[in-house]
């Protein structure tokens, strides 16, 4: 492991995993933490509990802002454990000189998103630090939710189960790249940032037995699938052409040498269900977004690995993203 922390250690991929395992898990180890789910299941399985910090730059981007992200991110982690988001804390670290008008705009955006989830902020903290100590504004939110669907886990996947995706992938990552200074890219891209609880509720109301569910944030769909393949010691086979990717996202990926499956999402989730539930689950997901798709199956071909099948009959592994997400140069 490196002697110093680099940006790559926060990539949601391999370096990030190494840092968490070798430092945090090593010292904090306990039965709940070691399950490494989106949210911890506590209080006799009744509650889900999670935390997340938001450091996005720029703070405002097409389709969202850091406030919306801070509520969606934490509520979605709860929703992914089959829990209804209930109570959040909100902790902000503000750089001196930050505009109060922008701060209020961000908080208003948080309020709107809390309403969609039916959740509320019940505690908080504010710190102001000297200029240069943080990049404008960081937000941490911690959330508690009531579990409504039990038994969701990344270690439950079995041969024959179906893998679904709730919409096209990579929109958030591509939007942030396009919005960054220096790229000068004109596009109509919008982040996918959205609260997922309403969709989860619709799945539960339709009587679908959810085996595993995870929002594909940092590290993208590739990270989720790899975690599941390893967590359940199975192989996940994906049909590459079935992964929905918006044309503009594909364009950015081609230009900068990224893969859409590695890009971050903030309102897209991957779902595992039993084969007999796949059609019904797809129907529910399509009701929210017509790009929802069944993308693959759980097999035993290469346990612990994710395989991408191309439309022309070749196969390759889909690995965890590594390093800082940088454009290829040749």
């Amino acid at each position, binding site marked *: 492991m490196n002697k110093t922390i680099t940006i790559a250690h926060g990539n949601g991929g391999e370096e990030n995993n190494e840092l968490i395992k070798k430092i945090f898990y090593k010292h904090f180890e306990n039965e709940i933490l070691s399950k490494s789910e989106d949210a911890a299941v506590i209080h006799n399985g009744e509650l889900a509990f999670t935390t997340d910090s938001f450091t996005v730059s720029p703070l405002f981007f097409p389709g969202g802002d850091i406030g919306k992200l801070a509520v969606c991110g934490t509520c979605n982690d709860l929703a992914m454990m089959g829990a209804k988001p209930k109570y959040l804390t909100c902790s902000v670290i503000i750089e001196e000189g930050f505009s109060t008008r922008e701060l209020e705009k961000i908080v208003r955006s948080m309020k709107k998103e809390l309403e969609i989830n039916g959740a509320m902020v019940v505690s908080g903290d504010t710190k102001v630090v000297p200029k240069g100590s943080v990049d404008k504004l960081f937000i941490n939110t911690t959330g508690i939710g009531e579990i409504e669907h039990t038994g969701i886990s990344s270690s439950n996947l079995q041969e024959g189960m179906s893998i679904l995706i709730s919409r096209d992938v990579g929109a958030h990552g591509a939007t942030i790249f396009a919005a960054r200074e220096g790229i000068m890219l004109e596009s109509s891209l919008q982040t996918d940032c959205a609260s997922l609880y309403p969709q989860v509720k619709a799945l539960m109301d339709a009587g679908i037995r959810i085996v595993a569910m995870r929002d594909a944030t940092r590290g993208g769909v590739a990270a989720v699938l790899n975690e599941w393949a390893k967590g359940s010691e199975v192989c996940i086979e994906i049909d590459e052409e079935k992964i929905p990717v918006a044309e503009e996202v594909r364009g950015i990926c081609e230009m900068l040498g990224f893969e859409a499956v590695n890009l971050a999402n903030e309102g897209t989730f991957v779902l595992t269900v039993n084969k007999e539930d796949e059609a019904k689950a797809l129907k529910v997901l399509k009701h929210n977004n017509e790009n929802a798709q069944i993308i693959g199956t759980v097999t035993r071909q290469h346990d612990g690995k994710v395989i991408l099948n191309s439309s*022309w009959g070749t196969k390759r592994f889909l690995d965890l993203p590594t390093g800082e997400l940088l454009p290829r140069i040749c």
Partner: protein
Amino acid sequence: MAGLELNNLYDDFRDGKTLQAYARIIAEDAAKLERPINIMEVCGGHTHSIMKFGIPQMMPENVNFIHGPGCPVCIMPKERIDHAYVLAMQPDVILVTLGDMIKVPGSNGSLQDARAKGADVRFVYSPMECIKIAQENPEKKVIFFAIGFETTTPMTAVLLDQVIKQNITNILFHINHVTVPEVMVELIDSRDIHVDSYNNKIDAFLGPSHVSVIAGSKIYEKFPKDYGRPVVVSGFEPVDVMEGISMIVKQFVEKRCELEIQYKRVVTYEGNLNAQKLIETYFDKVDLFRWRGLGNVPESGLKLKDGYAKYDAEVIYRDVLPIAEIEDHKLCICGDILRGMAKPPECTIFGTACKPTTPIGSCMVSSEGACAAYYKYGNLITS
């Protein structure tokens, strides 16, 4: 890029049916070959495409790929990376470079590590962004650590041209541009007295299209003529690569040995003459450039002409830049891989001590490198 529409420009070049059709044509032609052939794709971009799209799985047994030295990040010797590191650590310097370069480990660490220690290291998508950085930081020196083959050299030349025309005084250059044909010659006809024979297995070359967009296909003329190796200049999409391979196989079946262009939609024999002129204005060939894993290759690198020494960071900072050459790790066989004599899995540290997160050899460093492509896309599935 403003105004560029990101419509889907490449679907046809990834069409499954077209790819399968090419696979059939290649198999039919390859059945007529008298012996197996080894095609070297010179460029890391091709290696990446070939692995990503699983093209080796579509090849008959007697058509093999060997991977060339065409990744500008992979071939950068450690002492040059140490230059970048030392420059980045200078007070009042902003070191600017392209993408993957910031991940490459030198003897003190990578530019990423330098940044974690407080150095101002930035990566840009276009060298022209240096002008804005220089204008916003008039009290600092912006050093552009320039890397890449014929493809990226004109961008550096345009930046220098603008720096001179706009009389910008705080941009310097550290030039590491290298050229493709010279290293191809090295691979089949080494002039290094320390190497008896490469015993190379290269039968033909797949030439990278983007290099020839600038330099023309003419740069490869000597390979069929003087060295008996056909060259097909090919694009990077899977259909382009498959057509390029098919053209090479056909040449062997028909007993021809020629320079051909698959990527006719952009590449011409002459190339971009304006870009070539601009490069000639500002750059000279260096006598020797040391390639990581390959050693010294005559006339394979560029430097700023003497008249532009005041823009040359290697001249301005010569007192602080290290000069000793640094050898690669003993167990690393990158040299053999870059010469097409070995494949990544043959290396004892491949995927164990040497991984993309902890690269030891040059081929694992950049995503364009042969080892990184094998590791990432796992050619294991075919074996």
